[in-house]
């Protein structure tokens, strides 16, 4: 059995041999994992925005004045039967006014002495996340349904972010793939340099009968250590940056949440996996050095 103490001794010797190279590898690892962590955060924010009320993920369909109650119920069923609609909640005019008072404040002159009868009945529609980007078309189609007088939905920056969830996920995946390939390449080069600079001792070990595992396991463990340390540092800095950012306003606090366990576990997993894969490639390339 290869003793861990001996492996750590070899790793420490390697770090002493090339301290600048090791530090640079660690910085590269931290940088790559910070990027990956930020990509996860962007997906998380887009996901949260797409399911929040008052974004393009939701819209309000106003019912035509004078529509009979039974037709309103049928209209609700028609809306709910659409595959794009996750939820269609009927809001009677008095409840609508209540809601407006809640949003704007009861003393707001816009709603202070308003007669509830002036407002139309409405349906608050929440779209499925994958159709959030299609709000304009859906609004046109819903406006064409008999009994609907008007459809309103949120536009602007937040609306367009929420509406682009699928594109954001695809972009984050592509970006994440580039980041992990870069990380793999950095670790590959770093470990390869380490192996080449210690060619003499590897040759002697081979000559003395050391197994492949004995000769190369220190490099794999060194790579895993880079991955772990880099991801820990990246999670710490990303978390600190997000905490700082969300402290600017209450609105940001609802959108930017602390890094979750899944997010952290994914970053650590990808970091260790890519580091070890890069090291394994370097070892395989050097196995007959």
């Amino acid at each position, binding site marked *: 059995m290869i003793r861990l103490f001996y492996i750590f001794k070899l790793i420490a010797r390697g770090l002493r041999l090339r301290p600048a190279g090791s530090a640079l590898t660690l910085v590269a690892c931290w940088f790559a994992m910070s990027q990956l962590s930020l990509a996860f955060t962007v997906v998380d924010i887009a996901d949260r925005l797409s399911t929040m009320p008052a974004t393009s993920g939701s819209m309000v369909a106003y019912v035509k004045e004078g529509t009979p109650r039974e037709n309103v119920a049928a209209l609700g069923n028609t809306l709910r039967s659409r595959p794009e609609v996750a939820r269609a909640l009927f809001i009677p005019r008095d409840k609508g006014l209540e809601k407006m008072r809640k949003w704007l404040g009861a003393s707001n002159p816009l709603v202070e002495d308003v007669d509830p009868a002036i407002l139309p009945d409405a349906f608050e529609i929440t779209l499925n996340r994958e159709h959030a980007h299609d709000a304009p078309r859906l609004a046109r189609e819903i406006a064409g349904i008999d009994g609907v007088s008007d459809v309103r939905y949120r536009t602007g920056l937040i609306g367009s972010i929420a509406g682009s969830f699928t594109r954001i996920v695809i972009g984050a995946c592509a970006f994440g793939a580039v980041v992990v390939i870069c990380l793999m390449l950095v670790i590959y080069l770093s470990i390869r340099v380490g192996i080449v600079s210690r060619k003499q001792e590897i040759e002697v*070990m081979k000559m003395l*009968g050391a197994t492949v595992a004995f000769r190369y396991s220190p490099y794999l463990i060194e790579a895993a250590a880079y991955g772990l340390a880099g991801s820990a540092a990246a999670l710490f800095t990303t978390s600190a940056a997000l905490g700082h950012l969300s402290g600017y306003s209450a609105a940001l606090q609802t959108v930017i949440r602390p890094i979750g366990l899944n997010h952290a576990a994914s970053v650590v997993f990808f970091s260790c996996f890519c580091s070890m894969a890069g090291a394994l490639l370097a070892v395989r390339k050097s196995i007959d050095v």
Partner: protein
Amino acid sequence: MIRFENVTKIYHDTVYAVRDITLSIEKGDLCFIVGPSGAGKTTLLKLMFGMERPSRGTVSLFDRRTDGLDASSIQAIRRHTGFVFQDYRLIDDWTVYNNAAIMLEILGKPAVYIRGRVWRMLKWVGLQHKVYERARNLSGGERQRLALVRAIIHDPDILIADEPVGSLDEPMARYMMNMFLKLNRKGTTIVIASHRQDTLMEYAKVFRMEHGCLVEPGSDA
């Protein structure tokens, strides 16, 4: 223990390093391979250690033919063998202690055992005051002694030594040769390549080589 049958080693298709050698070394033998420089002694030792494969013929180590063995089996054989290289093959950046301990680390011996054994062996060859010195800073004689310690520290079944006392002064060379004799009396099979005569040869089986051929196979000197 070591058996060569009609072994020939050819380099670059034309250079015959050893030619049609048949020999047998049994457990507990003390053997000398003597001959002038370029006679093929080092190649013969490399064939014994599994560092070279024969071009023709068969080499058997521990009653196993080496031509059918994979790399991991050759490595396993090497772990039971000690080899003192002509050029020492020490790890220059490592300390004397680490160079001496590496074989025991490879074998996975406990740290306490390694520490005690390395100190005893280094003291035995007079290197105890150089324990934390880098191998590159040692003199030729010190390097040779360290290479010897590394080769025998794990009590190998076979010790193969290529010119093991070539860089030592006469008293140290004598001391080392006596040590080989002691090891052999403890049961270690020893094969030594040397270009010079030694009084130890009177106790040994001597193979004399010239131009890659055995001219005196296993005779007394």
